[in-house]
């Protein structure tokens, strides 16, 4: 049963991620990325990461993709005619790397020991609870740094996208 769900999600993820790259119209690319985000969230549910599945849908599908679609509509660009000139080189490189990674993933012996350090059961006692406890104890400092990154990104986006912000302050 788990295999059925995995192969369904994996097939849709692979097909839609190829479509993101292959489709000419940016709106269609963004929409197939939306489908991919939903299926990645489904994959997270099968991996007992329910909180991350919810966050994936809220943040990626709800916020990030809306931002992409907003910019695509704002710029009103038409679909491009052809791909970049380095298409053969890029395709060859991608296929080589893919073959290497697949060989490494499937052929090599895989470790059976678990990681050292804090061992916390993922499934038991609620996924959100375990995640929150770890986030506010062990990873408290990175958590605060993440909030700082969001603040810097917000200010940076406003400064970059606002027209003539410096001229106006000079005039006033």
């Amino acid at each position: 049963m788990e295999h059925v769900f995995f192969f369904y999600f994996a097939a849709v993820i692979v097909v839609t991620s190829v479509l993101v790259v292959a489709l000419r119209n940016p709106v269609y690319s963004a929409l197939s990325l939306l489908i991919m985000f939903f299926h990645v969230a489904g994959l997270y549910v099968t991996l007992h990461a329910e909180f991350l599945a919810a966050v994936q849908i809220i943040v990626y599908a709800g916020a990030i993709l809306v931002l992409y679609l907003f910019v695509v509509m704002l710029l009103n660009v038409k679909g491009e005619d052809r791909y970049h000139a380095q298409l053969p080189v890029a395709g060859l490189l991608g296929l080589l790397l893919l073959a290497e990674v697949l060989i490494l993933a499937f052929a090599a012996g895989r470790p059976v020991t678990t990681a050292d350090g804090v061992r916390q059961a993922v499934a038991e006692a609620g996924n959100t609870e375990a995640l929150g406890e770890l986030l506010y104890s062990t990873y408290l400092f990175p958590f605060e740094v993440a909030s700082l990154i969001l603040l810097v990104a917000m200010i940076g986006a406003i400064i970059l996208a606002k027209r003539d912000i410096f001229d106006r302050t000079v005039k006033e």
Partner: protein
Amino acid sequence: MTVPISYYLGLSAVVFLTGVVGVLIRRNIIIILLSVELMLNATNINFVAFSQYFQNVAGQVFVFFALTVAAAEVAVGLAIIIALYRARSTINVEEFRLLKW
């Protein structure tokens, strides 16, 4: 009967390399940013799969941080795209050759 970890690694490798090829072959800068999102999602799948494999919830915390960085990257990246479009009125990467020699 659980799905082996190598299946998740294979899926993540395929998605990541699709993103790499997308960055290399597309000329629309918005699609290039979308391909970067593909790569971030591939690493997130790896994190969650290993988190389940090792029964250690720390991997999911790192997905949380990757999500934060992705949101920041999208905000700043799209602002840069808007500023570029204002300056050059195109989003084709081959037109931006100021730093090329």
